[in-house]
């Protein structure tokens, strides 16, 4: 019975991690990723590691998802003209010439 919080924490981590992998859209993935950070923080607290929980909460809930979202925004901005005709191949050719 004393193990119950620990079991719940482990279950939460497993669920959040599985969701992080199975959500394929990176913009949406940021949310299970933040949830995983929170779940790990709680689990570490239950494992009597407050130091680690503190750094995991700050990193996992705020820093990593924020950077993922910013990258998504940047990459989407770049990738969008690709759907249009032949914009991307043209740019690629151009860059290859530059490199040579």
């Amino acid at each position, binding site marked *: 019975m004393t193990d119950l919080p620990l079991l719940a924490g482990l279950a939460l981590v497993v669920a959040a991690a599985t969701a992080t992998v199975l959500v394929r859209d990176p913009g949406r993935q940021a949310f299970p990723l933040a949830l995983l950070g929170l779940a790990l923080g709680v689990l570490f607290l239950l494992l009597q*590691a*407050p*130091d680690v*929980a*503190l*750094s995991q909460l*700050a*990193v996992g809930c*705020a*820093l990593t998802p*924020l*950077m993922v979202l*910013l*990258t998504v*925004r*940047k990459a989407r*901005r*770049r990738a*969008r*003209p690709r759907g*249009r005709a032949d*914009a991307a191949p043209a*740019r690629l050719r151009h860059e290859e010439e530059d490199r040579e």
Partner: protein
Amino acid sequence: MSRGLRRWVLALGLLGTAVLLVLAARGLPAFGGSAHPYGERAVHAALDRHTANTVAAVTFDQRSFDTLGEESILFGAVLGTVVLLRQTRDENRLPPQPARVSPPVRRYALLALPVTLLVGLYIVAHGQLSPGGGFQGGIVVATALHLLYIAVDYRALERIRPIGLYEAADAAGEAAYVLLGAAGLLAGTAFLANVLPYGTLNTLASGGTVPLFNAAIGVEVACGVVVLLARFLDQAVEIVSTDADADADPDADADSDTDADARSHDAAGEEADT
């Protein structure tokens, strides 16, 4: 390799790894067991040096050389990100637009900012006593500064964030750690040795060099994270490539332009208030 074949290879590999991991787990000491030879010795050594938070003692005293390696990775990663995300020749910088923030969000964020900043500094300063230290506190401080982006807008954040200064401070934090380690050599013992008097257990000035190492790491982590986020935010908010600029995000541009006209005097007025 075809997609189907790749799936089979992956399934085989994962299955094999799973079997090995389960076998290994059965060979590990049982979870919750009471035999922790290293842990007991580490606790003993930490209390010998009057450091109440034994985790800080392990990080910055007993294993401080390992921490030097870790923070060098951190420094290298920040440096690499700065180089990778710099503005290239074919990119332009758009001045960020003022943004409307709903008053409750603004009030809450401006209230939370100084509190979070103080908590972060507290966590760094009390690393040798209570859970916390330079790594955790540094991130809290860096995140606190970004509440200004939520509370006001990107221009306000840029005003309190001279990147050059933070980059220099990041390097200074790394250098301070090495120099503190070299102090051990000057004192005639070893590199990174704990040379200061240990003080009284459970007071702010206990643990010898542990609080100083904590402060150095705190500066490095806080400035490193600020620089990292600044580079990502610059890329996401300000920097646009010239060739994709015209058609890359018509909706986003149109959106911010029309809004900017409506808001500019509004935002200026609000700034005067804050």
